[in-house]
């Protein structure tokens, strides 16, 4: 993915120093991933664009707190984005809506129009495919619980109420799904064991 390019760690060194080029590189590398997640959670472009800016502003302000040994840069940024999006959803008191078919098509067109770095895009596409394979292995009920928690920011009791399942069942599904997903991604070399 990064042949001839700066590694994530080197980019973050630059961000910590306040190097403008480093933050621009960081955005170019992960802006699309962050935007995709934000749009999936918030459902509208305007709010998502604000969220993307806020994610990178926080990354810049809090660069000193990033520890590579605790996680990858991409997931650190995704974590910031997801937390901000959940805050926004709770603030709105609304739940996210999935982009409908027309929206998906529009998003795909926008994505392809911006594929100006084939190596980055290939890396991200490969990663998406591997993640999709791993998630496909999860039982539907477990996956549903995880998606409601991750994308909608629902608590376990909110999920139980939404699905009409006992709270204990939701807790069990979440625990099993977490372990299973971790094992699968570890086998794929996506995460440490």
């Amino acid at each position, binding site marked *: 993915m990064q042949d001839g390019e700066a590694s994530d760690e080197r980019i973050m060194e630059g961000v910590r120093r*306040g*190097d*403008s080029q480093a*933050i621009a590189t960081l*955005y*170019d590398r992960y*802006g*699309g*991933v962050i*935007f*995709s*997640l934000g*749009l*999936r959670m918030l459902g509208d*472009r305007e709010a*998502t*664009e604000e969220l*993307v*800016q806020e994610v990178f*502003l926080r990354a*810049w*302000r*809090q660069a*000193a*707190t990033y520890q590579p040994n*605790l996680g*990858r840069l*991409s*997931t*650190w940024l*995704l*974590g910031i984005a*997801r*937390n901000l999006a*959940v*805050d926004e959803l*709770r*603030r709105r008191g609304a739940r996210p809506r999935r982009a409908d078919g027309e929206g998906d098509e529009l*998003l*795909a067109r*926008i*994505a392809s*129009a*911006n594929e100006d770095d084939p190596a980055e895009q290939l890396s*991200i596409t490969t990663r*998406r495919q591997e*993640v999709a394979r791993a*998630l496909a292995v999860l039982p539907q009920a477990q996956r549903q619980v995880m998606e409601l*928690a*991750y994308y909608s*920011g629902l608590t376990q009791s909110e999920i139980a109420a939404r699905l009409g399942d006992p*709270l204990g069942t939701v807790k069990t599904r*979440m*625990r099993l*799904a*977490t*372990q299973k*997903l*971790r094992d699968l*991604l570890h086998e794929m070399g996506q995460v440490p064991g």
Partner: protein
Amino acid sequence: MSEHHCVELLGGYALGSLEEADHERVVSHVRICAWCRTEAEQIADCLHGAFGYHVPPAMPGSHVRDRLLARLAEEAAALDAMAVPSDATIAAVATPAEVSTPAHDQGSPLFAAPFAPSRPEPRLAGAAPVERPDTGRTPPWPHVPSPVPVHGPGSRGPRTVRARWLASISLLAAVLVLGLGVGLVNMHRQLDNQRAHLLGDAFTGAHAAMVLAGPAVKHGMSGEVIMRPGESTGLVIVAGVPKSSGKMTYTCWLHQSGHWMPGGSLRPDASGIAMVVLGKSMNVHKADEVAITMEPANRTPSVPSTPMLLSASL
């Protein structure tokens, strides 16, 4: 393993979806259990790596990049202004809207000025750095003196007098620098003692200290949020705090359940140390972040209105 750890809850914890009681249990546990803390980090990494990528691909428009870089330039400029604090510059930091905005809509190059030019190394306030500007002249601090020409017996020509004068000046400078160094060491020791004293008084027993990080670190500010596991009080202590004008004040914020709440003002003493005790009513153990900003002294807004100078995740 789960008898001692809380592995079964870490997935829900990483997702922020636990019920209150379970959340409290995990929060208390991970503060003292490095193993579970690492597990939680790895699970979070795994979940973000999976669900974060399992979304329809989309890209923001190019204007988002432009706006982001312009906002960063604004913050960098505001921080630069803070490097030499004065009433005017502190006001500029605290009111970024008033800082001149880069004309990014006019196609001007972004970051025409250095994003964050090199600044003095972080230092504690009151510890005046020993500046050594390169003036091209002989520096007024100790150095290896040039060999002094030896004159014949009884010779006390102008060059000898000048050499002795230079040696005297050098010796005096050496004493001054040595004194400054000793003073600096003493000041650090006093700071450590003060901190230990505070901790001893207010936080006997086990406590956790979260380091505050942020752009102000580059300007010499440093600090910690100190808490005892499971308790609702905390202490924020910051060193290297520049004096502010009467119009603006350093304000501590807590982020809880998606909302910001003011935690009090930080008023630096003569040595640049400021602290604020977060009382029981603040329920610090329920907060997920602490931040410090500058706010108008006569009116604390309901949410932070200026860029975070320092922050820490709890």
